């Protein structure tokens, strides 16, 4: 494996806390924190996936919430048809099918929109990824059968072998394990030859092209992997909230994912998880005091971006990687 520095120990410690703390609360009869931790964990998977392109690829995708939507609808729509008929071919509560569709559709959407978006750079890339995500948002908004802007209640959770998602503890453990797998996947990818090219293109694309790398293809593959991973998080999110609405895909949600990654520390293994944790905690506790809870979050983000190199992760382990 990769060498064990200070950041690795911090990562292990935080991940251990994230696993144990909600369980302790749960076994003491407090289910609230387990639910909070589950949501955090699922959003963290999305943030980790975004970090692959944003942090390591330098590709600022402003449309990652769309994949959460695809993933959740991939659970919601087959389940809807089980209860209300129609679309025999896809009507099922089979979790393997639903998660498979979630990942597949997300990968496909990322591949197609990425192929177009990656022809642009900088601000244009940000805008075009947002535009594609908004197209998906308006598409689901306009489908009356699946509730339009009222959203769709997911009547039963995915049926998976081995785990029962109706059990909050099992849903949490599945989400947590998925998060760890996602983190390890991204970590493995970025240290591979592929990852070196991706990071090289972030630092100096002209140089990579001059060396003979078609960096466009490398970025497209990274973008597709990231979308697929985020779609998986969406399928978990659908199961967690038992409800999906187009609002989950809106551009502001994509912005929140970006906040999490940047606040936590881009191009770090733990950063996106830290960012999601802070986001969830601030949202949960500040929103009970004020509807303006975004304000302290925004101020914190500005402070971190201006004064700390490398986000919260930089604050914890010092600058550098």
């Amino acid at each position: 494996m990769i060498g064990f520095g200070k950041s690795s120990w911090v990562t292990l410690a935080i991940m251990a806390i994230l696993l144990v703390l909600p369980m302790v609360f749960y076994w003491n009869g407090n289910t609230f924190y387990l639910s909070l931790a589950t949501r955090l964990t699922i959003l963290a998977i999305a943030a980790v996936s975004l970090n692959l392109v944003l942090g390591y690829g330098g590709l600022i995708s402003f449309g990652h919430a769309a994949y959460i939507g695809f993933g959740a609808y991939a659970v919601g729509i087959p389940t809807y048809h089980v209860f209300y008929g129609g679309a025999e071919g896809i009507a099922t509560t089979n979790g393997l099918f639903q998660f498979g569709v979630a990942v597949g559709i997300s990968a496909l959407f990322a591949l197609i929109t990425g192929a177009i978006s990656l022809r642009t750079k900088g601000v244009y890339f940000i805008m075009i990824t947002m535009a594609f995500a908004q197209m998906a948002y308006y598409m689901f908004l306009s489908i009356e059968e699946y509730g339009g802007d009222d959203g769709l209640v997911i009547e039963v959770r995915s049926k998976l072998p081995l785990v029962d998602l109706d059990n909050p503890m099992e849903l949490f453990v599945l989400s947590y394990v998925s998060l760890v797998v996602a983190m390890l996947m991204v970590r493995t990818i970025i240290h591979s030859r592929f990852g070196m090219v991706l990071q090289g293109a972030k630092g100096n694309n002209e140089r990579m092209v001059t060396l003979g790398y078609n960096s466009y293809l490398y970025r497209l593959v990274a973008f597709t992997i990231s979308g697929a991973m985020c779609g998986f998080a969406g399928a978990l999110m659908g199961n967690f909230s038992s409800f999906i609405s187009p609002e989950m895909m809106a551009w502001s949600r994509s912005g929140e994912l970006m906040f999490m990654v940047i606040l936590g520390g881009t191009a770090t293994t733990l950063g996106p998880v830290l960012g999601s944790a802070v986001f969830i905690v601030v949202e949960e506790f500040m929103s009970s005091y004020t509807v303006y809870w975004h304000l302290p979050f925004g101020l914190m983000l500005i402070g971190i971006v201006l004064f700390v190199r490398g986000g919260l992760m930089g604050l914890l382990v010092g600058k550098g990687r």
Partner: protein
Amino acid sequence: MAALLEVRNLCKSFGGVAATDGVDLDVLTGELHAIIGPNGAGKTTLITQLSGAQKPDSGRIRFKGHGITRMPAYTRAKAGITRSFQITSLVLDMSVLDNVALAVQAHDGHSFRFLKPARKIAHIRDTARDWLQQVGLGDRVDAPTSELSHGEHRLMEIAIALASGAELMLLDEPMAGLGPDESARMVTFLKGIKGTKTILLIEHDMDAVFALADRISVLVYGKIIATGTPDEIRANADVRHAYLGEE
């Protein structure tokens, strides 16, 4: 000797300005061919068209007998053309060794490999280390690229060009911004590799050019006005008039 690179009637304009105006050029296998010319003569524009970063308006470029005029830059690099940059172009947030390793990796099969840590692949790392040793940066391999001096960055550019295994190196002012000592070191180094690679050198430093080049082409306002050995160029009246500024 056969021409490794043939350029015929190459033209490129920006607005009304003809930066490259009907350039014919042959770079022979194994030679060190220098291109000199006053500022704004279109030297860098020529290099960018040869490397593929810009497309010419008209004309042909052949490399090893194959037309490459419309070939994208990354395919040309794979075919064996590499360039260094007048303004240093490195991945600053990676280590010195990582930068050179990426050049080695580029011609070590495809890089759609996702599992094995790239920094643990011994033959890539060792080859990269060897090239850095050769340019005299052996003790700087693990430093972050951003911490190296300008002179060291110029040497890195050369190490990367060499490590990319290209047959044809387009060197765009490798001495730019170097002090006299560093320049001398660079000239010595280029003399050492001369003959092992075909080199097209753009350079302002006339002492360096006349010391290194087998042949020299003089580019003025996008046109090659003379090509010949250093002695022929020195004696050429047009060149003296247009460039060296002597009557």
